[in-house]
């Protein structure tokens, strides 16, 4: 599996993403935002960071970068695209995923460990997990409050497109377990076709016991097992 990690000038978790992909044995190539070439990558990762400073709206400017034209094409062909944190924000701005990510309800940046419940283990990105499994991963974002109109939320829930949900350590959705006030405690969603996933938490920072958790590995293993090429 060849993973292409898009690097915008303000990306800052591209190293984390590439270490995680390498940890499961994937080949990694870095894709510069000014280029138009995906270098034959099977999977595209849009990593965390502040793509172009994100002063206007997180991800708003990144979606117009040259490489994004290629990423959109890749997604339309059914190619896997994973957007983490800022990557999720960019995917929403680029309309590859519905909804938007707004300022955290607390109005403060949220850097903390959270528990996620895997709501759908039948996706390209989650097959190594079991449905209902609880995983520990960090979040680190100021704009993570997932919002969409009521119809969209209902549709996402009914189609099983809500992939990860913030829960407490016992697995219960609780306001106190939700770091940003996202609707329905949504932490990550997949598109209707199942090939584009966006999530706010950082599974790529939970791939080594030294970092406090290896629960994030499953996501990369899932991709590897399905995309092995």
């Amino acid at each position, binding site marked *: 599996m060849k993973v292409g990690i898009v690097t915008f000038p303000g990306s800052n978790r591209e190293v984390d993403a590439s270490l995680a992909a390498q940890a499961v044995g994937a080949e990694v190539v870095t894709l510069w935002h000014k280029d138009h070439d995906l270098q034959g990558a099977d999977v595209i990762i849009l990593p965390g960071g502040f793509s172009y400073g994100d002063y*206007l*709206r997180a991800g*708003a*400017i990144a979606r*117009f970068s040259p490489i994004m034209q290629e990423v959109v094409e890749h997604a339309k062909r059914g190619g896997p695209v994973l957007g983490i944190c800022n990557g999720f924000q960019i995917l*929403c*701005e680029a309309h590859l995923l*519905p*909804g*938007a990510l*707004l*300022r*955290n*309800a*607390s*109005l403060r940046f949220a850097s903390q460990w959270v528990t996620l419940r895997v709501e759908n283990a039948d996706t390209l990105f989650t097959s190594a997990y079991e449905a209902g499994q609880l995983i520990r991963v960090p979040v680190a974002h100021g704009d993570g*409050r997932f*919002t*969409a*109109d009521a119809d969209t939320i209902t549709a996402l829930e009914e189609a099983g497109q809500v992939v990860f949900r913030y829960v407490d350590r016992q697995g219960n959705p609780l306001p106190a377990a939700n770091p940003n*006030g996202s609707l329905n405690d949504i932490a990550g969603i997949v598109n209707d076709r199942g090939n584009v996933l966006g999530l706010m938490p950082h599974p790529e920072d939970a791939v080594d016991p030294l970092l406090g958790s290896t629960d994030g590995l499953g996501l990369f293993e899932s991709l590897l097992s399905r995309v092995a090429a």
Partner: protein
Amino acid sequence: MTRFRVAVHIVPRKGVLDPQGKAVSDALHALGFSAVHETRVGRHLVLDLDAADRSAAESSVRGMCDKLLANPVTEDYEIAGVTTP
């Protein structure tokens, strides 16, 4: 071509939670401004640009809002004024 100054308001859509507005109201109440009923917080952009005339300036800025400046999922915008600086 003339230089125009276009002011735009970008505000959270009705029904979208506005924690900033709520924080401002709460703080104002705590400071004793109890007459305040509700507060909404949005962005105020002022763009200086060259255009053939007022309406060209305005429609050009509408294009920018549609494309970049506002997110239609959560925000509404309105052109608040066009002046010649």
